[in-house]
Structure formats: structure tokens, C-alpha cells
């Protein structure tokens, strides 16, 4: 929990009870006129504590602890692919935003003959969604009585993503860590029975470590995390051992609240969740507070919707994704080809542009500045009215590129037709379909 400027002031030399320190009160060596002014700047993160040469050790550790994020940032990586999770600051995305989307991992077993092929397919999978390249994040390799080290090596060879090593047997885990050398993998898991050996491995191999208890027992979980931390492992991930919908939602919510609202350091870490083969459960875990989600299988028809779901929830609500207003040429249009208008909300733009593009019909797409809202929302908010559309027609000079003056407006705003005819008296206004998906057919019939 960040301290306020006044709370910081109480830790600086001006407030010290030690005369040796107190004598440096307001010494200005930090570059600010008083300790109070420096404290205020520290509170706003516009100054560094190291600028004060006289701050006491005890104060220093308090200040450093307060600056640590309530949920620790954990990094796993391989071959330049890096995944960061944690560092979240809110319970609901509308309060600010969710910063780090949870890593989606596909599990393979060391007894599975096609582990490397699955890993390869996962590594190669990428899908475009509104201009973003969506991918999975890694492979979780499970020890199941096979050759764990060899499977980890084969998976690492086949897929450039980070790994999670699933074994609670220290000797097996070490074989996996050796095979995963050169990557920053996540090791699962330290339990109340094996934590000393697992913590030693995590420290030796410098990897983050999952602490795991059964049945959502938060007391044991916090105690185990403290023990592991005491053994020198700072990068910790929590597995409270709940796998079902109801207790998963309850326990993950409790952990998030403990970290953010109670500043409970012992559970201030990201959570790992296991969804089995259920994309719906994975969806809940994405929305409700996981840092890593492990799925049992990989199928594009399931993964694509899940990746889009994750992208949606982790979209920053403070800034709608916008495209630049202006004229977009699709399929190399000529002066006689149709002109359509839509808004600059990215999802709206991509839906319309994708439809025109995939139809093969050349066209001009005029994107009006609707402050990043979709057609209906913008219309309701007065950001996509006749005046704004007319303005974008005029300001872009689109008329000069055409040999006709026909403008197609979205069917949802058919009511604007009359006003638009007044604003653009030279133009013929056509009402297009309500949904982008019906555009190709509309264009074929109306323009073909």
C-alpha cells in the first residue's frame, strides 16, 4: 500500500527522534527546500528515496516495503518470449484497468507420445483479432511417470514459449529444470511436505515457485508462502488447491481482496488456476483474478473464443481502442466504387472493413470521428450525427476521389437520412444494412 506524503514525512530526518539524524532536517541536500516538500514528491513518485543521504535504515525498509506492489509481478520467459503477470491494482476493471492478462498454458504429460507435437501446435498458433495478434503463452509439462526431463527438453525444442513444470517430487522437478535450462520456467509446486527441497531448487535455478495447499486453506497457504520466502524465494505464485467453479470464485476473490484491500503481503502474489478441459471455467478464471490458467487440451475452435474473451476483459476501459478517422481504401477502389461511412471504434471499423475486404468488392470506407464509440452508442451520445458525418465527408475531400455522390450509412442510423440530405444537399444518401455481416450481400445487390 502506497504511503501518503505526510506518512512519508514522519520517516524523514525532520521527524527523527535521533539527534544525529534530526540535525539534517531540511538540509536541502535532496534538492528540495524542506523534508516535507521532499516527502510530497516521494508520495507522488516524482523523487527517489536515494536522494536523501541521511534517512535511517528502519525508515528506508518501511518506505521500500510500501513501494512494493500489492500483488508481486512475476515473469516467466523463454527464447525472448516473456510473460508478466501480477501487479494488479483493482478488483473491477472499470475502477481503472486490469494490467497483465493471465498466461494461458496447455498441459502435456510426460507419458504422452505426442507432447512435442502439441507443444509445436501451441507455439505456432496465432490468430488476428481487431489487428492484435493473439497467442497462447506456454506449455505446462506434467510429470506422470514418464521421462520428465526428456519430455521437457522435447517440448522446449518444439515450442518457443515459457514452461510450467508440474511435479511435486524434487528429484523429478530438478530433471525438468535441468532440461529447461536457459528458460525462466515456473515450478509447481511446493507443498507443506516438500517445500524445503522445492524452495532450494527454485533458489538454485532462479525460477518462480508455486506454493500449493489443499481445499482453499488460506492460513496454510499464507504460512507456506512465508516459509518459502524465508528460504530465499521471492517470486511466488499461489495455488490454493481449488478446482471447481464456486470455491474457485470465492477463494480467488478473497485472495485478490486480501492483497489489495488488506495489504496482506503473505498472499500478495499471482494465482495459478487449472481449468481442465472446460473453457467456461477457464473464462471464469481469466475474468476473476488468475495469473496463470492451465488447460488440458488445445483446439482452435475453443482457444480462439477464449483468447478473444481474455482480450476483451483486459482491454483498458479508460481508452476505447480507436482507429484514425479518415478515408480507408479497401480492395483498391476506383472513382465509381461505393462509399460507406462508419465510426472510428476499432471493433466497428474492423467488422466493417473485414466484411468489405473478404467480399472482394472494392470500396471506400469513410471513418468518422465518433470518439471511439460504436455506431449505436455514438449515435445515442450525439457523436455520430448528420453534422459529424457531413463534416467528415467535407474535411476528407472524398468527393474529389469519386465520380458519384452516393453515401451509404449504417442501417442502425437510418433516421439520420433526412438531416443528412439537408447537410449534404448534393449527395444521395443510401441506407445500408444494420450489421456489417450483411454488407457484402447489400453491395452485390445495390451496387452490382
Amino acid at each position, binding site marked *: 500500500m502506497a504511503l501518503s506524503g505526510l506518512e512519508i514525512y514522519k520517516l524523514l530526518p525532520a521527524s527523527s527522534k535521533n539527534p544525529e539524524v534530526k540535525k539534517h532536517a531540511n538540509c536541502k541536500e535532496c534538492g528540495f527546500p524542506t523534508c516535507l516538500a521532499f516527502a510530497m514528491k516521494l508520495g507522488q513518485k516524482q523523487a527517489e528515496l536515494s536522494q536523501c543521504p541521511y534517512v535511517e535504515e528502519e525508515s528506508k525498509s518501511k518506505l521500500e516495503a510500501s513501494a512494493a506492489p500489492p500483488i508481486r509481478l512475476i515473469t516467466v520467459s523463454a527464447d525472448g518470449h516473456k510473460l508478466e503477470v501480477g501487479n494488479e491494482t483493482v478488483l*473491477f*476493471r*472499470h475502477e481503472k484497468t486490469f494490467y497483465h492478462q493471465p498466461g494461458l498454458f496447455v498441459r502435456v504429460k510426460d507419458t504422452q507420445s505426442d507432447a512435442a507435437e502439441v507443444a509445436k501446435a501451441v507455439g505456432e*498458433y*496465432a*490468430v*488476428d*483479432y*481487431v489487428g492484435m495478434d493473439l497467442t497462447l503463452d506456454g506449455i505446462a509439462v506434467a510429470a506422470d511417470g514418464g521421462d520428465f526431463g526428456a519430455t521437457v527438453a522435447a517440448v522446449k525444442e518444439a515450442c518457443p514459449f515459457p514452461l510450467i513444470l508440474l511435479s511435486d517430487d524434487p528429484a523429478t522437478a530438478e530433471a525438468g529444470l535441468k532440461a529447461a535450462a536457459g528458460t525462466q520456467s515456473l515450478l509447481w509446486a511446493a507443498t507443506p511436505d516438500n517445500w524445503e527441497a522445492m524452495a532450494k531448487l527454485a533458489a538454485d535455478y532462479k525460477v518462480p515457485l508455486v506454493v500449493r495447499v489443499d481445499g482453499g486453506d*488460506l*492460513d496454510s*497457504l*499464507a*504460512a507456506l508462502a512465508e516459509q518459502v520466502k524465508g528460504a530465499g524465494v521471492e517470486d511466488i505464485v499461489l495455488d490454493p488447491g481449488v478446482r*471447481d*467453479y*464456486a470455491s474457485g*470464485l*470465492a477463494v480467488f*476473490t*478473497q485472495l485478490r*481482496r*486480501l492483497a489489495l*484491500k*488488506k495489504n*496482506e503481503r*503473505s*498472499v500478495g502474489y499471482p494465482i495459478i488456476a487449472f481449468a481442465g478441459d472446460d*473453457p*467456461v471455467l477457464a*473464462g*471464469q478464471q481469466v*475474468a*476473476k483474478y488468475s495469473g496463470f490458467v492451465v488447460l488440458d487440451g488445445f*483446439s*482452435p*475452435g*475453443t*482457444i*480462439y*473464443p*477464449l483468447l*478473444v*474473451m481474455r482480450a*476483451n*476483459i483486459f*482491454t483498458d*476501459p479508460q481508452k476505447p481502442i480507436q482507429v484514425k478517422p479518415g478515408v480507408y481504401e479497401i480492395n483498391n477502389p476506383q472513382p465509381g466504387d461505393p462509399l460507406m461511412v462508419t465510426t472510428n471504434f476499432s*471493433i466497428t471499423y474492423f*467488422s466493417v472493413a*473485414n*466484411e468489405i475486404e*473478404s467480399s472482394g468488392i472494392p470500396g471506400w470506407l469513410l471513418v468518422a470521428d465518433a470518439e471511439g464509440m*460504436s455506431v*449505436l*452508442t455514438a449515435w*445515442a451520445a450525439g457523436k455520430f450525427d448528420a453534422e459529424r458525418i457531413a463534416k467528415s465527408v467535407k474535411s476528407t475531400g472524398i468527393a474529389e476521389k469519386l465520380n458519384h455522390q452516393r453515401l451509404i450509412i449504417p442501417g442502425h442510423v437510418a433516421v439520420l437520412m433526412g438531416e443528412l440530405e439537408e447537410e449534404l444537399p448534393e449527395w444521395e444518401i443510401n441506407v445500408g444494412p444494420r*450489421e*456489417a*455481416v450483411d454488407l457484402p450481400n447489400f453491395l452485390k445487390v445495390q451496387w452490382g
Partner: protein
Amino acid sequence: MPTIEVPKEKWSGKVREITLGATAADGGTRTKTVTVGGETTLPFLHFEGEIPHQPVIAIEVQDRRPADWSPVLLEAWGDVTDDVATWAKAAEEAGADIIALKYTQHEDLSPDHARQTLRKVLDATGLPLVVFGPGQAELDNEVLVAVAEEGKGENLVLGVCEDKNYRTIVAAALAHGHMVDARCPMDVNLSKQLNILISDMGLPLERIVMDPTTGALGYGMEYGYSVMERLRLAALQGDGMTQQPMLVTPGEEAWRAKEARTEEGVPEAWGDWGERAVNWETLTASTLVESGADILVMRHPESVKRVRAMIDALMSE
């Protein structure tokens, strides 16, 4: 050993309990009613408050075989879509708690057609009904007024009741003993305002469900999701005009998405069409369940099954 105290919020508000449908005892002909709402905490946080009623699923049936539905949907239902009464029965068998009867725009659409269709569905099923007009204000008024008269006393939910037509729909609900589905375009304040306008006309808040407008997965779902979370938080904090149970339409929205509708010309990475399409509706609906939906209007029997399984699991403490 640290002792962790589970943090609980002390909410002062409660979602309104609302009952759909009316049995003979209450002047209707439904064999059962459905009650939603009553939550005193965020979705499924049983450790903190009461969730007296689980979210329910309405299956959408249309007044005639849909011309524009994805083949994935039409195949799943088969021939029953040819007759609205048969379809309603099949929907009940597929696990619907409520039947959502949707009128579409076509040349035979008339008040008479609306009455006859409603009568057929009322005769075919004993479940409560939500009735949607074709989605064009004038036609909606024509259809829904006829429906309200024909279904007098059945405590139907009439939808959608929007800013531009709420007076007519609310008057019909008042005159014939029905409820309304108050829809606003993804905005907390507009939702509150419409609830106020409707209750000012004399319709009790116990007869209003709130429809925050649904965006499909990939097409603005997160806007609706966050508006719903904000509405539910406001309700629990005691804002009386946001305490209506929420109705969402993930079926209609998800099946409008290209991902659900089309097989041709889509990227290979989208995967198997049927699998993707059902997941599209399922994940749209399940995400909205997490943000506080009380009534989900859905289309595909397999999506219904999966979302039902999720809700059942979330209700088991």
C-alpha cells in the same frame, strides 16, 4: 503461523426479487413461475451474502422459421423451428426455465398474427414467457399491445421497452398485468433514468427487469460486462433504482457475430465452425453470468446445457 481473516463487504442493498409468470391462483395459466433476484452480494459469493435464486435461462423461439439464422443453430433444432408451438415444447425439453418468444419482421406480421402466435405458445408450454417485438419501435408497439391483451394476467415480460417507446409498452403492461424489459444502451445512468420514468408511470419496480444491452464476445462484450458490474455494485450499495434483476441477450448477439454465422472465407485459426459457434454463445453468456446476469436469453441447446452446468456448479456451496 499467520491467521488470515477473510475480507467481507458489508452491503446495505439487495437486488429486488421479481417473479415471472402467473399460475391459475394469480390469474394466469402458467404451471410454474420463476423468481429471480434477491442477491445480497456479488455473483455467487456465498461466503458473504445470500443468493436465494439462481440465474435462469430463457430459450429463444421465433414466430416463424428464422430466415437469417446460422445453419449451426437451425441444424441443432431441426424441424421444430417450422412451428412455434412445437419449438416452444422442444425448448422446454432442452432445459429452458423461460420461453423467450421473438416476433420477426415479415409481411404477415399483424396484431392478429401476434395474438394467435402467443396463444399457441401459451398452450404449448406452462413456462413463463418473455416476449420480444421485431425491434422496430412502431411494429413493437403494435405487436406488444396485442400480446399484452391476449395474454392478460399471464405476467409476461414485454420487451424491449426503450426510451422511445416505453410509454406504450408500460401502459399495456399496466392495463393487462404484465412486466417490462427496460433496455438502455450500456449506460448506468440511462438505466437508472429509464427505471425511474417507468415507475413514475405507476408500474411497480417489482415488475421491471433491467436490460443493460448485450455485446457479443469480441464485439463490445466488455462494455456490457462492466456496466453490469457497476449496476450491481450500485444496487448492493443501496441505490434503489439499480436494484432490478438484469436480463441479457447473449444468444441473439453472439449468433450475429461472423464467428458464429459463417464457415466460408474465415481464417483457419478460427477452428471448427460448430465448436467455435457454440463456444461463442457459451462464453458470451458465461462471462455475463459472472457480472450479474439474472436472466439469459439464449439460442443453442448445447450452449444452454453448458451455461446451466456452470450456474449449477456456482450455486453449490
